Every structure is written in structure tokens, then in C-alpha cells.
């Protein structure tokens, strides 16, 4: 029968809406408002997966984020996701879930043999076993670990879902909508403060949904509903359910993960699946509640064993019975509510209480209802493999270390409660050092580190009355801090039952003749024995014990295991828990999908794309683009079936023989203005700038203070106090910051301003022996002769109605000009140049040809100026002024920089004149030398020289000056190549630099 364990008319699910879903290939039904966990339990499914290390059968242990076992592979809308917590995911039509950690099936799992071989899997197993020999790693250890330890399977499909990021600012963020959160948010909101209230579950109310209390004569849930509906009316309040605040960072920045679309059957194209919120707030109230702690006993991981609070939530919220023959095992009063709820639903529980006879309000109510209770008893171990079928219980002796007698009781579930642990994770993340509160045997937040206050159960306050009080107080305190308003809130009348003290009974002793594993950490399969071994082997610090045993290191962050682990260590070590200390909590509190972290920054949105004004033209003319930072630059223009090398050769040849045009818009451009501009440039560049006349350009090299070349480019004096500086495309942003640093910090007395003008100007290089003829036709009104516009000259002119700047500068080593017009005229300029250049054989050229041209000329660029070369290394000696001081000059006098055998730029050609030399190859003397083969240098740039029709490379070579004429080997283990090369001058073409001046 379907949903046989559903209680009639109980819970907050919508019974009118039936939902179909699949688990391990079988069809089931549930209701709207179910989680995957509650729906499976309604169908009597407890066996949900296999454990991580021993592959033991596991079932649901909790009803929320504390669940350590129920991690499923979930397929929804064609998207498969591993490690989804079944207790957190809402049931939607068509969802299909499968068990993890089991092969071939959850009911028959080969890996379960690990359970029988468990003595081979003790604490530190991974450290001890997979150690030697190294070669075993690849073939044996790693495949084994991967297969044995695999959790779910990550999808290799592209994630089609949409994820978003949102930045929000508020006065107060309240994390959790239980009684503490609701009262805090309500009080603060009344003052007009901008409040965000976040609840990780789909329903608001937290413990009010399940606890047997009343507030102002309303049930807990009705009161929560009333407060929520009031808050919803307030314009200054944002209420978010399905939203987990998972990280608390510096300066009150919290990060929240919202499940926006996961529960929707149909969502619009633009509805994100999940959303990440960055919330910067003035104040934070942490009302994260508490999590029930289990008592450790034998085989406590058997399906059917779960937290008493979980069992109660399944009954009260989802109308699901987790068993019909329940055993309740407790050391405190709260589990009696679970027992009473079972009884109210017609099921007879048996309560096993480790304490002596109790007469508290709750216990008496249970007694009055006829519930059977065994005081001074403990569950020793659970029996049953895939499901609990009975339990061995025992009557405890005086000091609770042994049993007076034992017997077996039949049961189909064991609901366990070892008291409550405040959820202090966010407080701890904020930097709050925790303190141990003896009365509850748990840690609570200590002094606030940031603007955070912890209220309610999270602060170790387990009674409703005082929680509400503290909540209203915290809310009004926040409103006073934020708005300086005193709010008077009437604290409501609360009706709750008094709880008597819990018992410090955390782990059932095992009689000598009984063998059973007692698990502390379910998700990572860490047992009591593992912790004992770690301590026996000498691990003392709790941080070390944690890492050695992996206790608390799974994705559940040890929510149900940390304190029991600490308690065990403290018992064995004969210390009190605060002496043992606690491990540090780190974000995220719950696992977050990678998609959410990435948000919209995927595909073309990964980073902004910068396009030049001529981009469309390049596209239309078959340009193949290359990324240069964020820019797209034409790499080459493909004609027919050309390869890149063929195209680059053709384009470069055309520049050498006729004329070419290249889009140089991407070069960094900086305006340098002010009366002290010349003095400033003189300090920034290595060469002299004081005497550059107006209308002239000069090549400049700038260093960092450590003497390394930072960037190079030409700067032109446009007018008396105005210079136009160019930088390389890659360094544009760094150079601007560098200049601002010196102007604002080091030399504030200089009257100079700098501003980036990169995007204001479109640039085109016109290069080749025929470029002057093209230029003459482009600017018929001016004289472009070598005399009036010489090398390094500058002119402003009219380009058919568009103001243009002409710089006679050259990167290609040919007679060349760079023309700049305002960006919106870039396309006009380009098309005009193509049109007029046609009769001279003009062709566009891309960065491949551009590189070819500069490499064979021996002009340095990024690969040579890689931050590890000083000017002398790259033959820029002539650029270094002997007379004046400049940034980085003092470093050049250091002994390492002045040695005669220092590295130097050289040229290389393969001795066979055919084989291209891969960039990045290492230069060595003997290609067969024993490793590590001494490296003499590296190949920085390579091209196919169009001038000499053979490969040519630039290299940075130790003692390069004296190596000309030598033969070396360029080895590239990456490309598996080793090429004999001859060392020659780096200036392969036009040694004297005649062409640029022609």
C-alpha cells in the first residue's frame, strides 16, 4: 500500500496534491510539502544508502540540515546532482533519486565486505596504508580509493540552470525563524529598521512547529504564522524562506544561499535555480537554534535509529510515522514529547531513560498517558541489518559503567536523544571564541567579535519564555543602536512544560562479550574505537584527532558528532570538555552548489569582452580572433584554406613588400598633463625627456623599483604641457596605477594629472614601404614627406572631416605610421584606409604577422619583458640614462645586475633552417645530459622569418653576449622536441634600422 505510514489528518502537507517520484528506479507518491525524506518514510523506506567507509546500510537519522546519512544522487529536469540531502530537498513532480556509495545496489553492496574486514580500516587507515611504494599510487591506491570512497557522481553535462548573485544591505539580518528569530525580527522591525529574516526551511517557525507550547493562547505554529504575516506587511522587512545563511565573513558580511526554483514544478526561463546573497548588515542576530545530540550505542547506525526530534518532526510536520513499535532512548525530558506524540497517534512507545526515576511535568504526562518507561536503563545495541528489529537493553549499575541485567526488546525504530547542542557555527565563523556552558554540557558563543548577538537555543537557552524575552530584548537593542528608538514590546504569555536536568550519559558501555560498532560520526564512519586508537597512538590536540580520524570533517560538519567526540576524548583523557577545546567551524555551514558560487559569471559573462570600433569589419573579413586580456584582437585574416602560419606569412610579407594595416586600438593610452609633466616622465622613464620638443614622439622604457622592465611604449608631446603616453595592451592598467602611485604618494609636489584615454581613441597602424603613398592620399592637405614628418614625428590633420592624429612610429620595423581618431570614427578611418590603400596592395594584418615583424626585427615585447629582465638583458642599454635618476635606477647598480655573463637577448635559428622552435623551450648545451640538465636560457618568442624564409626565435640566454655563433639545443619536453640551434644576433633584419627612417 502506498504511503502506509502516513498519519490521518496530521501535518502541514497538502494532501490534495499528490506528487509522483522515483527512488532507485521504483515509483512512489508523496504530497506537496513533503521533503524527499518524509515522502520515502511515508512509504516505509528507511534504507537509503550505504556508509562511506564500511558500506554499512544506513537510514534517515534526522529531519533537517543535521542529517548525516541521507545523501542522494538526484535527477531533476535532466540535471543530475550528487550528495543532495534528502531531508532538505522538497518533493517535486518527476524527481528521481538514487542511493550513493553502493554497487551494484543499495540492498546488495559488494563494498560491504569492508565491514567484515573492518580491522583493516581503523583510524588513520588512509595515512597508514596508502604510503609506499610511490608507484602504487596511480595503479592501485588511487583507483581503489576512488571506487571505494566515491560519494555521488558529478555531472559532466553543462549545467543549463540559471544562478544569480544579489548584493543587499540592511540594518539587521536575523538568521532563523524560530521563536528567537521571530521575536528579534519583530521588535527591530517595529522601529523601522531594515530587516532581513532568513529561514533555511520552507516553513517558518523552527521549533514552534513541533514543540508542545502555546503563546498568547495560540499554538506555536499559529503564533509564528501571525508574526510572519505581520512582518510581511511591513515595507522595511524582507522575509526569505528556503534561504540558508552559510557564511559569516569580515565586517559583517554574510552570505546566504536561496533555493529559488528547486521546488517549482514549472519555472520561467529567467527564474534562477538558486541565488547567492551577499548581505552587508549593521547588526546580526543569530537565532540558529540547536541540534539534538544522539547517545552513542552499539550498531547505532542501523536504519530505523534516528533522533527523537526527527521522529517528532516527521509526525507533526509531515504526518509520517517512522515506526509502529518505537523505542525512545533518552537522557533528558525533551524526548518525552516524541513518546507522547507517538501515543497520541495510537502507537505505544517504550521509553528507555538513563536517569533514575523522574517526576517532571513531561514525564508525569507520559506516565499518565500509560507510556511504559524504564529508568536507569540504556540501549546497548540495535539488532537488525537493513532495519532495526530489536534492541539489547540493560539496567545500569550505580556508576553507569556496567549493566545489572540485559534483555532484548522488539522494536522497529529507536528514537534517541542525548540532549541539545546549540548551533554556534555562524557565531564561531564571525570570530567569536566559544565558551563551555556546564549546565548544558555544550559550547555557546562568548563575547561578540563583530556586531553579532546570539539568541535563544543557539545561545544555550532552551526554554521558550526566556528565548522570547531574549529575542524581543535583542531586537529592541538592535533598533536602539540602528534608529535610536526605544520600542516597547509586550512579551506574550507563554505556556510550556518545565524540563528537568539531563543526565551526562553520552555513550552506552559495551559488555565484554558484545561486539558492535558504536558510531560517533555517521557520515565519515568514525567509531568510538577509532577515537580510542587515535588517542592511544599519541594524538592529543582535538584538531589532530579530528584530522586523523576524520571526525566531523564530512559535509555535515559534525553537527551530530562533534560534541560526542569531544566528550569521548575528555572521558578517556580524564579532562573536562573545555580543556579538550573544540575545533574551528568554517563556511559553508551547509554545502553550496558550485553553480551558485559562480552565478552568472559563466560562458561569455565570465569576464567582460572589449571590442575595438573596427571589430565588425574584422568579423566580416574572416578574422580569427585571439584574446588579449579582455580584448578580442584579430590574430589573422583567413583567406580560403590557409593555415594560421600561411596567413601570417602572407600578411607579414605584404607589410615588408607593400603596405599593411593593423588595428592597434587596444594599446594602452594615457594622457599626462600639467606643468611638471616633462619632469615626471623624466623620473618614470629610463631615458631623458626634458628636451623632447612639441610635435615629437619618443620611445620610453619604464622600470619597477627592483630594476626589472615594467613596460615600454612611445610618448608624444602634443603641446607644451600635454603628453600622449602609450603602453602595451597587457600593462595598461598596471602602468596607470603605477603613475598614480608616484603622483599621489611619492611626489605629490609634482603638478601633473594622468587619465586613461585608451577607449577614447581608435588606432590603426599603417606599415610598409608604400605606407607614405597611402598616407599622402589620406591627408592630401598636409605634407607627409620624410622632411616634414620624419621618424618619431607627430602631426594633427583632417581625415575627410574627421580630426586625426598621425604618429610616425613603427613596431614592425618598416616605414610606418599610427593614426588615431576618436573611437566613434574608428570604422570610418579603417574603411577609408582600406579603400585608399587598395591600389597600393593594402592588406590587414593580425597579431601573428605583427609578432613575426617585430620578432625578426629584434623588437622586444611581453615575452621578453616578463618582469624578470632588466634593460641590459634585452639590449636596451642605450635607453638607460647615465646622467639622471629614475624609478629603479639604483637597483641596476647591484652586483648581480652588472655581471658580464648576465643573461642577454639573442636570436636563434635552427641549424636545419626548417624546424620551428617551440616558445618556452629550454636552451641546453647537451641534449642527452643527465637530468637535471643545466638550463642556459629559454626561448621567448618564435616566428617564421618572412625576410629569410626560415624559422627565427628570440631567446634570453645566460652570457648571451659571448654565445653568438655557438650551437645549442632547444628542448621542449612538453612537445617532445629537441632542436639544434645556432645563436645569432637578435636583430635578424635591417640591423641599422634604415627602413623606419626611410
Amino acid at each position: 500500500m502506498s504511503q502506509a505510514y502516513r498519519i490521518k489528518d496530521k501535518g502541514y502537507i497538502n494532501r490534495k496534491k499528490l506528487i509522483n517520484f522515483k527512488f532507485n528506479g521504483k515509483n512512489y507518491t508523496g504530497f506537496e510539502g513533503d521533503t524527499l525524506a518524509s515522502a520515502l518514510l511515508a512509504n516505509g523506506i528507511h534504507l537509503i544508502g550505504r556508509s562511506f567507509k564500511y558500506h554499512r546500510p544506513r537510514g534517515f537519522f534526522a529531519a533537517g540540515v543535521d542529517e548525516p546519512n541521507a545523501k542522494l544522487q538526484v535527477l531533476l529536469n535532466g540535471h543530475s546532482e550528487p550528495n543532495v540531502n534528502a531531508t532538505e530537498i522538497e518533493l517535486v513532480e518527476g524527481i528521481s533519486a538514487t542511493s550513493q556509495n553502493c554497487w551494484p545496489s543499495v540492498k546488495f553492496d559488494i563494498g560491504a565486505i569492508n565491514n567484515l574486514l573492518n580491522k583493516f580500516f581503523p583510524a588513520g587507515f588512509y595515512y597508514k596504508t596508502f604510503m609506499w611504494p610511490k608507484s602504487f599510487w596511480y595503479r592501485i591506491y588511487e583507483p581503489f580509493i576512488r571506487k571505494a570512497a566515491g560519494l555521488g557522481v558529478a555531472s559532466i553535462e553543462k549545467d543549463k540552470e540559471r544562478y544569480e548573485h544579489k548584493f543587499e544591505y540592511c540594518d539587521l539580518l536575523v538568521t532563523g525563524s524560530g521563536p528567537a528569530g521571530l521575536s528579534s525580527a519583530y521588535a527591530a522591525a517595529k522601529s523601522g529598521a531594515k530587516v532581513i529574516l532568513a529561514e533555511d526551511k520552507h516553513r517558518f517557525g523552527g521549533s514552534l512547529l513541533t514543540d508542545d507550547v502555546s503563546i498568547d493562547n495560540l499554538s506555536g505554529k499559529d503564533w509564528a504564522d501571525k508574526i510572519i504575516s505581520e512582518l510581511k506587511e511591513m515595507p522595511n522587512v524582507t522575509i526569505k524562506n528556503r534561504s540558508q545563511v552559510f557564511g559569516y565573513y569580515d565586517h559583517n558580511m554574510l552570505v546566504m544561499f536561496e533555493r529559488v526554483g528547486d521546488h517549482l514544478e514549472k519555472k520561467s526561463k529567467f527564474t534562477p535555480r538558486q541565488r547567492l546573497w551577499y548581505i552587508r548588515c549593521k547588526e546580526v542576530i543569530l537565532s540558529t537554534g540547536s541540534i539534538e545530540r544522539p547517545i552513542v550505542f552499539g550498531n547505532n547506525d542501523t536504519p530505523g535509529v534516528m533522533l527523537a526530534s526527527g521522529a517528532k518532526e516527521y509526525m507533526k510536520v509531515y504526518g509520517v510515522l517512522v515506526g509502529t513499535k518505537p523505542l525512545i532512548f533518552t537522557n533528558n525530558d525533551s524526548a518525552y514529547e516524541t513518546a507522547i506524540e507517538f501515543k497520541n497517534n495510537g502507537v505505544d512507545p517504550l521509553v528507555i531513560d538513563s536517569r533514575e526515576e523522574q517526576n517532571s511535568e513531561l514525564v508525569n504526562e507520559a506516565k499518565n498517558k500509560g507510556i511504559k518507561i524504564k529508568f536507569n536503563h540504556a540501549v546497548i545495541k540495535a539488532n537488525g541489518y537493513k532495519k532495526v528489529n530489536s534492541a539489547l537493553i540493560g539496567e545500569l549499575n550505580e556508576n553507569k559503567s556496567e549493566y545489572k541485567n540485559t534483555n532484548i526488546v522488539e522494536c522497529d525504530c529507536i528514537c534517541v536523544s542525548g540532549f541539545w547542542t546549540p548551533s554556534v557555527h555562524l557565531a564561531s565563523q564571525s570570530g567569536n571564541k566559544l565558551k563551555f556552558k556546564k549546565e548544558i554540557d555544550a559550547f555557546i558563543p562568548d563575547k561578540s567579535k563583530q556586531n553579532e548577538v546570539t539568541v535563544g537555543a543557539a545561545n544555550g537557552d532552551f526554554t521558550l519564555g526566556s528565548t522570547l524575552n531574549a529575542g524581543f530584548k535583542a531586537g529592541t537593542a538592535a533598533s536602539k543602536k540602528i534608529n535610536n528608538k526605544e520600542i516597547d514590546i509586550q512579551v506574550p504569555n507563554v505556556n510550556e512544560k518545565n524540563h528537568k536536568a539531563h543526565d551526562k550519559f553520552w555513550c552506552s558501555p559495551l559488555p565484554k562479550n558484545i561486539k558492535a560498532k558504536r558510531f560517533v560520526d555517521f557520515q565519515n564512519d568514525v567509531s568510538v574505537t577509532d577515537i580510542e586508537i587515535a588517542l592511544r597512538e599519541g594524538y592529543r590536540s582535538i584538531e589532530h584527532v579530528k584530522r586523523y580520524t576524520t571526525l566531523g570533517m564530512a559535509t555535515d560538519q559534525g553537527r551530530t558528532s562533534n560534541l560526542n567526540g569531544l566528550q569521548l576524548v575528555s572521558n578517556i583523557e580524564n579532562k573536562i570538555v573545555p580543556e579538550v577545546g573544540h575545533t574551528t567551524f568554517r563556511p559553508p555551514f551547509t554545502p553550496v552548489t558550485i553553480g551558485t558560487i559562480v552565478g552568472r559569471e559563466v560562458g561569455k559573462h565570465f569576464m567582460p569582452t572589449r571590442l575595438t570600433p573596427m571589430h565588425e569589419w574584422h568579423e566580416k573579413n574572416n578574422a580569427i580572433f585571439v584574446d588579449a586580456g579582455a580584448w578580442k584582437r584579430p590574430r589573422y585574416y583567413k583567406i580560403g584554406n590557409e593555415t594560421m602560419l600561411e596567413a601570417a606569412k602572407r600578411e607579414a610579407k605584404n607589410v615588408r613588400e607593400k603596405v599593411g594595416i593593423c588595428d592597434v586600438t587596444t594599446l594602452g593610452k594615457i594622457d599626462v598633463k600639467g606643468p611638471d609633466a616633462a619632469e615626471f616622465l623624466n623620473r618614470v622613464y629610463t631615458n631623458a625627456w626634458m628636451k623632447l620638443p612639441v610635435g615629437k614622439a619618443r620611445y620610453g622604457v619604464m622600470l619597477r623599483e627592483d630594476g626589472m622592465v615594467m613596460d615600454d611604449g612611445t610618448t608624444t608631446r602634443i603641446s607644451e604641457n600635454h603628453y600622449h603616453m602609450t603602453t602595451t595592451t597587457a600593462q595598461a592598467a598596471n602602468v596607470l596605477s603605477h603613475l598614480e602611485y608616484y603622483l599621489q604618494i611619492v611626489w605629490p609636489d609634482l603638478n601633473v594629472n594622468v587619465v586613461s584615454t585608451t577607449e577614447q581613441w581608435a588606432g590603426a597602424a599603417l606599415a610598409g614601404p608604400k605606407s607614405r603613398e597611402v598616407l599622402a592620399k589620406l591627408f592630401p592637405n598636409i605634407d607627409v614627406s620624410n622632411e616634414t614628418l620624419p621618424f618619431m614625428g607627430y602631426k594633427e590633420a583632417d581625415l575627410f572631416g574627421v580630426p586625426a592624429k598621425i604618429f610616425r612610429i613603427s613596431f614592425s620595423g618598416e616605414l610606418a605610421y599610427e593614426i588615431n581618431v576618436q573611437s566613434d570614427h574608428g570604422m570610418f578611418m579603417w574603411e577609408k584606409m582600406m579603400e585608399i590603400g587598395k591600389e597600393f596592395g593594402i592588406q590587414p594584418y593580425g597579431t601573428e604577422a605583427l609578432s613575426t615583424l617585430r620578432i625578426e626585427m629584434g623588437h622586444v615585447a611581453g615575452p621578453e619583458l616578463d618582469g624578470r629582465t632588466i634593460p641590459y638583458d634585452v639590449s636596451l642599454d642605450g635607453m638607460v640614462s647615465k646622467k639622471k635618476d629614475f624609478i629603479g635606477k639604483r637597483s641596476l647598480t647591484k652586483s648581480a645586475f652588472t655581471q658580464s655573463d648576465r643573461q642577454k637577448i639573442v636570436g636563434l635559428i635552427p641549424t636545419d633552417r626548417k624546424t620551428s622552435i617551440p616558445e618556452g623551450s629550454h636552451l641546453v648545451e647537451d641534449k642527452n645530459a643527465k637530468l637535471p640538465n643545466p638550463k642556459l636560457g629559454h626561448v621567448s618568442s618564435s616566428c617564421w622569418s618572412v625576410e629569410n624564409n626560415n624559422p627565427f626565435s628570440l631567446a634570453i640566454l645566460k652570457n648571451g653576449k659571448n654565445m653568438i655563433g655557438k650551437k645549442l639545443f632547444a628542448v621542449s619536453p612538453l612537445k617532445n622536441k629537441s632542436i639544434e640551434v645556432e645563436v645569432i644576433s637578435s636583430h635578424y633584419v635591417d640591423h641599422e634600422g634604415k627602413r623606419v627612417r626611410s
Partner: protein
Amino acid sequence: MLYIKCPFCGMRSQNEFAYGGDASVKRPELNKEISNNEWDDFVYNRKSLRGKHIELWHHVSGCRQWFKVQRDTATHEIFKTAKMDEQI
């Protein structure tokens, strides 16, 4: 993510800024004869202080001004920010 008060723009998130190191470092004057050690102290040698520290930040995605921040390197607490010509 830190929350930093640019003296020109006001409170902004850290991702708008670039870090610029110790603000107490003074560049040696131009043309001044100094020893290798003094130069190395300026270029390379920095103390990695725990505690209060005055450092430079650059509002690169904002007003592009460099300014001073007094921050605790251990707790990230920011005590004060100031323009370059102001004292902290």
C-alpha cells in the same frame, strides 16, 4: 570581504580596492647616495606585522585615489582611513 571607507567616496566593499602595502615606507629621494642596505630595505624588506598597521589602498574601481588605512592585520578591524596628506 572587508568594508573600507574611501576618504573620497565613502564605505565600499573590498573588491573595489587594490592593496598597496606598508604606508610607512618612504622612497629614498632622487639622486641621493644611499647604501645597498638602505635601498634593499626600501625595495624588498617588509615586516609582516601582527596587529595595528598603516597601509596603502588604491580605490581602483572608484575614484582611483590612493589613501591610508589603519587596520589590524590579525582581526581585520579597520580603525581609521585618511587621505595621503592627512595624519592617522
